[in-house]
């Protein structure tokens, strides 16, 4: 089994191909939708736009419960509306789930306090996009320094540190000593040494596999970061699924579907 904590879809073709390949490879996709209209996603979407994205996430997850975990997209620029959106989705979904934050506001912004409280209450993970571009970040884009600050300020929230900051040396160092930051290897070129750097600084218990599928990455370019890394098989297994499963099974809502799956899987 492989758990991909970071995957996107935005049209029927991507949904069909991604699910077909995921099943063939034994991958469970944690899907978030940032652009349901097959466009480039707006950086500050309205609550209605976010809801439409999550409707598509819900549809894909509902029709493919064997290999999809929904990650509800939120734009905390509208804090009250997004708290309501998250609560609505959590109450409606019976199974593993999490949240996704992109570039609405930075991870250490006070407008996220209410959302973080909900995530902590239900022990749900959040995938926070981060980046560290020497050419300059986008407005609202969280850098590794800000991710570290958010992680320290909210120790009761499990963060998937999206792209590990993209520049892995920044990300790996920023995560040191912050046990609730889990390094997502997804996105970016299959840079040699990427995963070894994360394991060295954060430890294999805090690295998780993500692909950034369709934005615009592929499965194999990102799996290569695990299969090609000079780390032990046990560490690879942790990164590919054990760590993520441990985080998702902490949640305090929507357990019945997981129980059903576990019963089916039992000999």
């Amino acid at each position, binding site marked *: 089994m492989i758990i991909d904590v970071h995957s996107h879809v935005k049209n029927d073709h991507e949904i069909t191909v991604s699910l077909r390949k995921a099943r063939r490879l034994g991958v469970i996709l944690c899907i978030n939708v940032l652009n349901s209209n097959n466009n480039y996603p707006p950086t500050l979407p309205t609550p209605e736009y976010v809801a439409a994205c999550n409707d598509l996430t819900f549809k894909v997850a509902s029709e493919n419960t064997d290999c999809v975990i929904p990650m509800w997209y939120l734009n905390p620029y509208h804090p009250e509306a997004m708290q309501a959106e998250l609560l609505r989705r959590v109450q409606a979904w019976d199974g593993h789930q999490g949240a996704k934050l992109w570039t609405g506001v930075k991870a250490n912004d006070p407008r996220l306090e209410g959302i973080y409280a909900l995530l902590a209450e239900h022990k749900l993970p959040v995938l926070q996009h981060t980046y560290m571009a020497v050419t300059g970040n986008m407005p609202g884009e969280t850098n590794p320094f800000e991710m570290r600050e958010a992680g320290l300020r909210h120790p009761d929230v499990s963060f998937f540190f999206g792209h590990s900051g*993209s520049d892995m040396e920044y990300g790996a160092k920023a995560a040191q000593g912050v046990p609730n930051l889990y390094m997502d290897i997804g996105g970016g*070129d299959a840079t040699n*040494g990427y995963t070894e750097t994360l394991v060295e600084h954060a430890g294999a218990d805090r690295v998780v596999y993500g692909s950034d599928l*369709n934005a*615009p990455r592929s499965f194999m370019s990102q799996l*290569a*970061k695990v299969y*090609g890394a000079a780390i032990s098989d046990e560490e690879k297994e942790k990164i590919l699924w054990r760590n993520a499963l441990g985080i998702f099974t902490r949640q305090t809502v929507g357990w019945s579907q997981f129980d059903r799956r576990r019963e089916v899987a039992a000999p």
Partner: protein
Amino acid sequence: MIDANAYVGEWPFRRLNHATPDALLRKMDALGIEKAVVSRLENVFYKDVMVGNRELHRIVQGRPDRFVPAYTINSAMPCWEQDFTRCVEEFGMSNLRIHPNYHQFTLLEPHTTRVMDASLEAYAQYHMLTSNALALLERAKAEDLVVLLTLALEDSRWHHWHVKVPPVTTTDAVEAICTFPGVRFLVCTGRFAHIADIWRRAYKNDNLYFDVSRVQGPVDDIEQLCAQVGADHLLLGTNCPIFYPESAKLSIEHAEISDQEKQLIISANAQRLFAL
């Protein structure tokens, strides 16, 4: 299996796995790669590329059964023509590696943008290539070399604070390819979108090939490129040791294409292009 785009050597900004010839050979053995077309990685930054070329020659002479050399020439340096001649006469150069972005010999004249905005007739009146680029590619044509045109080595957003190097643009590549239709170009490290763009715009493309080292998405990238460009114009390249070589290898192996197409990409095209 043949890797059409690899390097031996160190990188100034971080320690690399598989940087030495022995380490690269061990990795090739583990992945079932019989031969690799290699350049000296230090030559990306050395002003005197002949230092790296001499080292490459020695490395390749040690394992001619495994390594195929692609020597680097920087046409922005004085007397580059002599470097070129020595590589041909002393090293038997058959493959030329160019890094126009790192070596600051942009392929196109500065007026390109203005001309590109003009009508097609106006566009056709200009020689877009710089004199240096023209001369270098003329020499490559005369010697019947394979030209490895590298667009980038890594994501420019992750570059060192003081060494920010934009990638070679697809317009540069298209202009060179269309001006020298008789030259066999292997465009290295193009992303999916770059390859699709170059292929669409390069109306003379019989001798145009791409490595897939940086084709790392979307989910059906190799399948789409086989449909658009054709498997006979795609080659396995790893950009090792900058990238994990498993990326390109696994992408091809797991692509939903025919076994015949896979065979073309992983070896047959390279055998034909490099006369192996």
